[in-house]
């Protein structure tokens, strides 16, 4: 089956093509088709997985050369797919969770005008994401990179009649574009220094060691620049909260489980190129994002925006881990997060579906009576994210904190602990405001259909048990099954010694999570938060507007940009260019209007001119002789 690995991206592409051209004819069947094709990809991936596992660890690489794409001078780029432990992990996550989300979407998007178009875009997105992670060279990866950006734009702005949705789509695209520019410059540098884009040639430790530290740092930081845009880290994070304008399945698939994790995948894949300096940058940015987003998430009343900031924060954790060199930890967090975040987004969608599209948590409350299944699975996801064992989130978060402490990075460790506390706090807040307390809503809530709740239950199962993959003994460890699985790519991670003992750290992180949940319970499960809000209204407004980051960008970027555009349009285009063209016309008019006066119509002036000519000719003749 490894020989047929190309089926994995090809099936969704086929689905996209069919739904794009024949969607109208298929009607409701387009959703079934789309889900089935992604499911088919998942099956192929599973079979390929077993094939890969049957090989010894060092040989778990398969490169499929599909065809020669282009040759330019000494550069040969082919459409090559690489199946190794890292990409296998990714395609299982993408196709597996993608499959569940497609099933869910059949229920969620029921009755939408552009039902088949939605599934066409979703399939197209899955195709591009698979291309991204299956690429054997940076060019194929870049095709996927750009493609997911495009599909994100299409899907965020799916309900483009809504102005806010269209604007959000534009914002997403342009912000990630900035990151993509850095990425492309990085690619150029790679070509200059390595002469190729192929992973086997570029991501070779021996080849990398021939370059200077400065060059490697530059290349890796440029690539990371792309990751900052795609994975919405500070300072290019502003598009993700607005991206919630898209349908909830889109938020779940793209902005929780897959596209935003492309940056993490990139860093892990290309970690050979990262120097200690660039890794520090990755770590700092990740930590800053994690902390900032966690703070802001506490003040969000819109359930989807709260989850969006939560995603930002968790992505920050992943980069924090990668920046410390703990790549398998970052990848496990990616997998676990994919499960519980997709789960929570879909559950939020279920809540919205039950309340006719309401997203303001102030208008919810006490919903667990009406939507027991949704409430239960949402809580599973939340507890997992908060980091309570034995759910998966604990096995992801705890290693990050303990590695930070043990490796002597005390201040980052403290900041990460604060962020962990806030994580537990804000996610529990969501649960309590939505499902507990007084019923503040006026809409009649009902549970969602089975087609929507079934995928939720499956995801919840994943969130419950996935943790065991990362265990050694009873403690989380990179030497668990998952960590060892990834070793061919990530290398062996030496856990630092020293610092506080492991058990202390584990108990500490659990305690932090519990305190956070308890605080949320006291404030939000009752009505005490209303009074709190009045007392801390300024703080709340600050948080709600995310420390006015968008407004700041508006001042710094938008105004000068508009000014420049106005100058170019009116100053240069109208003034100079039009001025030249119009000027030519005016000059011609002037010349002709002056020139026509020669035709006086009077014989005597003609005679005078005649004589003038004669004088001239005679002078010429006389002088010549």
């Amino acid at each position: 089956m490894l020989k047929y690995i190309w089926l994995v991206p090809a099936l969704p592409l086929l689905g996209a093509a069919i739904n794009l051209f024949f969607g109208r004819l298929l009607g409701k069947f387009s959703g079934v088709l789309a889900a089935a094709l992604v499911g088919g990809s998942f099956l192929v991936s599973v079979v390929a997985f077993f094939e890969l596992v049957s090989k010894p660890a060092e040989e778990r690489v398969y490169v499929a050369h599909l065809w020669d794409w282009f040759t330019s001078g000494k550069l040969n780029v082919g459409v090559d797919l690489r199946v190794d432990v890292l990409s296998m992990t990714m395609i299982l996550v993408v196709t597996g969770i993608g499959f569940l989300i497609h099933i869910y979407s059949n229920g969620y998007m029921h009755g939408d005008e552009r039902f088949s178009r939605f599934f066409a875009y979703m399939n197209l997105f899955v195709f591009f994401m698979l291309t991204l992670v299956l690429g054997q060279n940076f060019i194929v990866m870049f095709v996927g990179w750009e493609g997911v950006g495009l599909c994100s734009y299409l899907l965020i702005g799916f309900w483009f009649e809504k102005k806010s949705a269209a604007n959000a789509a534009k914002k997403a695209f342009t912000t990630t574009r900035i990151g993509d520019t850095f990425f492309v410059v990085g690619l150029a540098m790679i070509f200059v220094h390595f002469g190729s884009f192929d992973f086997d040639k570029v991501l070779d430790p021996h080849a990398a060691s021939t370059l200077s530290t400065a060059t490697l740092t530059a290349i890796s930081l440029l690539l990371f620049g792309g990751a900052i845009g795609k994975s919405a880290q500070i300072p290019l994070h502003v598009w993700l909260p607005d991206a919630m304008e898209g349908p909830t399945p889109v938020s779940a698939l793209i902005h929780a489980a897959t596209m935003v994790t492309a940056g993490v995948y990139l860093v892990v894949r290309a970690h050979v190129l990262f120097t200690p300096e660039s890794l520090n940058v990755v770590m700092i940015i990740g930590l800053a994002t994690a902390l900032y987003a966690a703070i802001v998430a506490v003040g969000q009343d819109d359930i989807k925006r709260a989850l969006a900031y939560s995603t930002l924060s968790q992505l920050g954790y992943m980069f924090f881990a990668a920046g410390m060199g703990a790549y398998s930890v970052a990848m496990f967090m990616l997998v676990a997060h994919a499960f519980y975040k997709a789960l929570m987004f879909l559950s939020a969608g279920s809540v919205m579906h039950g309340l006719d599209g309401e997203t303001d948590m102030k208008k919810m409350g006490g919903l667990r009576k009406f939507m027991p299944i949704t409430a239960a699975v949402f809580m599973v996801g939340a507890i997992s994210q908060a980091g309570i064992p034995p759910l998966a989130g604990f096995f992801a978060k705890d290693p990050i904190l303990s590695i930070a402490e043990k490796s002597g990075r005390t201040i980052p460790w403290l900041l990460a602990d604060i962020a962990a506390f806030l994580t537990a706090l804000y996610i529990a807040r969501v649960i309590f405001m939505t499902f507990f307390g007084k019923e503040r809503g006026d809409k009649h809530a009902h549970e969602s259909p089975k087609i929507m709740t079934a995928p939720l239950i499956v995801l919840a199962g994943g969130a419950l048990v996935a943790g065991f993959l990362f265990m050694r003994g009873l403690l989380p460890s990179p030497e668990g099954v998952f960590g060892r699985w990834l070793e061919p790519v990530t290398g062996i991670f030496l856990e630092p010694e020293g610092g506080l003992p492991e058990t202390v750290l584990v108990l500490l992180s659990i305690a932090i999570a519990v305190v956070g949940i308890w605080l949320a319970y006291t404030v939000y499960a009752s009505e005490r938060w209303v009074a709190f809000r009045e007392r801390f209204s300024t703080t709340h407004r600050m948080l709600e507007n995310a420390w006015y980051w968008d407004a700041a960008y508006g001042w710094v970027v938008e105004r000068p940009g508009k000014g420049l555009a106005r100058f170019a349009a009116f100053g240069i285009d109208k003034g100079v260019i039009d001025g030249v063209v119009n000027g030519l016309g005016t000059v011609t008019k002037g010349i002709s209007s002056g020139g026509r006066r020669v035709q006086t119509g009077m014989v005597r002036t003609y005679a005078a001119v005649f004589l003038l000519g004669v004088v001239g000719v005679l002078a010429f003749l006389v002088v010549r002789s």
Partner: protein
Amino acid sequence: MSVEQLVFWILAPISVASAILMVVSRNAVHSALFLILNFFTIAVFYLVLGSPFLFVVQIAVYAGAIMVLFLFVIMLLGVDREESLKERIKGQRALAIILVVGVLAEFVTAIRLGVGVSAKGAAGWDLVNKGGNPQALAKVLFRSYFLPFEITSVLLIVAAIAAMVLTRERLKVVPDAVLDAEDEEEEVLA
């Protein structure tokens, strides 16, 4: 000084003076008369230069026919009024003076450069005019220049016809109905 030179130096100023007066006179008839005087002086110059035939032709054709025709037309059109002195085209007078002086200077330069002020006539002039100037002229005219001669005769006929055509009265086209009505009127009256 020989007779010819005396004649030249007396007539030349008269010639120039009459020319200038012709141009300057405000009365058209006066201009014509001055021009006739000029033609006479030129005729004498022809004589001095050894062409008695042209002397006579000049007086007969130019002064006698052409200028008379001019005077007829002047009288006919009643343009013996005075012309105003004001020049309406700006700069025309200045330009005219400059250009004319320039032309004259160029001519004189050319003459000085080319011919010089020599006193000689061609040798053997008497031989050229053997048998009298008209006969000699006729020999050349009817032998070498016969074709142009015939063509100029055609030209004269054409010119005469052209003059008649250009100046004839345009006949009005009267419709038959009106003509018949007029005839009826006459019959009734008769």
